[in-house]
């Protein structure tokens, strides 16, 4: 049985009369199959003075599907958006700690966030195609990046990879908004793929879709995982179990009188291991449905 290697540094603090174990835990897979893409080190995210994510450390590996799971409000989406600097768009957001991408500090002053997002793409919770034609939606990213080659070919290839080509090949000039929800989301994936990213981040991509459309997207993920590193946030445990190779379980700490919750990483392991033999009691409670 593979075990997660843990290096724990324990700080025991008195907090309003109760003992709180503040553990800064570095989570790594003991025998990774592929090299690291992201090295996240003691990541803290603040919105103003409120800490939304506390001391997260983990490594994400290439060409695998990594799932972030946990109850709502535990900072999964905030975490995800740190990986492509989308939190930059929020005025009050502040990131502390390190996110290294292929060894490069993503938050270094010299790093251009626009360039970051070309390599680390994102698919959002609610499909958000542009109010343009299907063709123009997929072509948008490459055009922005200055692509001068065979655009038609690139479009077809991207739509093929997103398992949408057969359904739309005769109506590329129609409005993207005329597609069904599931088709729109696959279009968004095609749009993302067209930029030829290295990593694809998915923020609950199926939560707005029906089960059949969800199945399509999950199959799609398995097909493309050989080419892209995928990190998916999902509130659906079964989906994580079906789809991912590695899972990170987050939970929310509630602070006394405040209504705000801070996200922390509890456990990070191969999916099979986490769901059959979790190390932490909190994880076990969550995956067995005792709370959620």
């Amino acid at each position, binding site marked *: 049985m593979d075990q997660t290697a843990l290096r724990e540094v324990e700080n025991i603090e008195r907090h309003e009369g109760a003992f709180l174990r503040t553990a800064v835990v570095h989570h*790594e897979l003991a025998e990774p199959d592929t*090299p*690291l893409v992201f*090295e996240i080190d003691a990541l803290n995210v603040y919105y103003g003075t409120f800490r939304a994510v506390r001391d997260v450390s983990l*490594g994400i590996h290439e060409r695998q599907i990594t799932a972030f799971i946990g109850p709502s409000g535990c900072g999964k989406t905030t975490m995800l958006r740190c990986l492509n600097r989308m939190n930059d768009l929020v005025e009050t957001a502040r990131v502390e700690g390190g996110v290294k*991408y*292929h*060894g*490069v500090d*993503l938050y*270094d*002053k*010299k*790093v*251009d966030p*626009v*360039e*970051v997002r070309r*390599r680390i793409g994102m698919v959002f919770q609610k499909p958000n195609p542009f109010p343009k034609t299907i063709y123009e939606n997929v072509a948008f990213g490459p055009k922005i990046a200055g692509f001068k080659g065979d655009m038609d070919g690139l479009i077809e290839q991207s739509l093929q990879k997103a398992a949408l080509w057969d359904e739309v090949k005769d109506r590329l000039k129609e409005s993207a908004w005329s597609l069904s929800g599931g088709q729109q989301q696959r279009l968004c994936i095609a749009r993302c793929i067209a930029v030829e990213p*290295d990593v694809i981040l998915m923020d609950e991509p199926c939560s707005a879709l029906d089960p059949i459309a969800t199945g399509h997207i999950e199959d799609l993920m398995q097909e493309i995982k050989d080419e892209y590193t995928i990190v998916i946030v999902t509130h659906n445990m079964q989906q994580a179990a079906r789809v991912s190779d590695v899972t990170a379980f987050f939970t929310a700490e509630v602070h006394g009188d405040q209504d705000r919750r801070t996200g922390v990483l509890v456990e990070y392991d191969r999916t099979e291991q986490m769901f059959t033999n979790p190390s932490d009691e909190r994880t076990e409670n969550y995956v067995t449905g005792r709370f959620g």
Partner: protein
Amino acid sequence: MSGGVRTMGTGDIVAAKLQHRRIDLRGKVFEYLLLLSLLISLLFLAVLLFEVTSRGIGVFQERGADFLTGRLSVVTAMTAGVGQAIMGSLLVLVVVVLVAIPIGVGAAIYMEEYAADTKVTRFINVNIRNLAGVPAIVYGLLGLVLFVQILPGITGGKTALTGGLTLAILVLPIVIITSSEALRAVPDSIREAGIGVGATKWEVIRSHVLPSALPGILTGTILSLSRALGETAPLLLVGATTGFLATGGANFFEMFRDSYTTLPTVIFRWSSLPSADFRALTSAAILVLLAITILANAAAIILRNRYERKW
């Protein structure tokens, strides 16, 4: 942790590409151009205020409050004042308040609280929005026909009452639209609560909906009055005096059915007199008008901001 030659190679390339942060020149230029367009508008405003103040402040320094009480004249700049104009504006505004506000708020109450969503209702809505877009001078034409030619018996012809009624019709659509918005902003839960304890529709409106909507209605009222204060074209058409005004000892109520002038009318007339003295007078009159207008608009904005925060 990160092992393997392959990762190092990719890392180098990635590092090189990522760390070459382009100074987004196009983006910055674009942003500053946009800011410029905003600032140019404000610049015009600043120049206008500066010009008017520098020309007109001298009148107040020399004559002080005498300017505010002086009589209208287009001949002698030294004694000409805006006293009658202010009085006339006041008379007109009184009529506007007494006529446009009750009818406007009443119409808004009907449209928002009583009327069902039928074709007729939608037609009335469209009609009100169209009326809001009709040029002021056309209302002047209406006033000319209705109040000067058809109904001089009631209005007295080219009087302050006529002017007030004409402007009341002009601002009516604005009052209706702003009051409707204020009423719509009141949450339905309040209405349901009232109906739930057995109150009638009017009782709910009177004791819950109207008081909640009152700040918004008040804001709309102030903006309408401010608009009416600055209107000139319709009043010219219904006979506001521009030259000499003889008001001899009439009591307040009689003044409504008497000749009159208003502040913007005087400004218009004096602006055609090119002498430096009258230029100064015009500027001084503008200062008075602007002071009132800007104060009123500021009050409305403050009222609206404080009101918006409540919900």
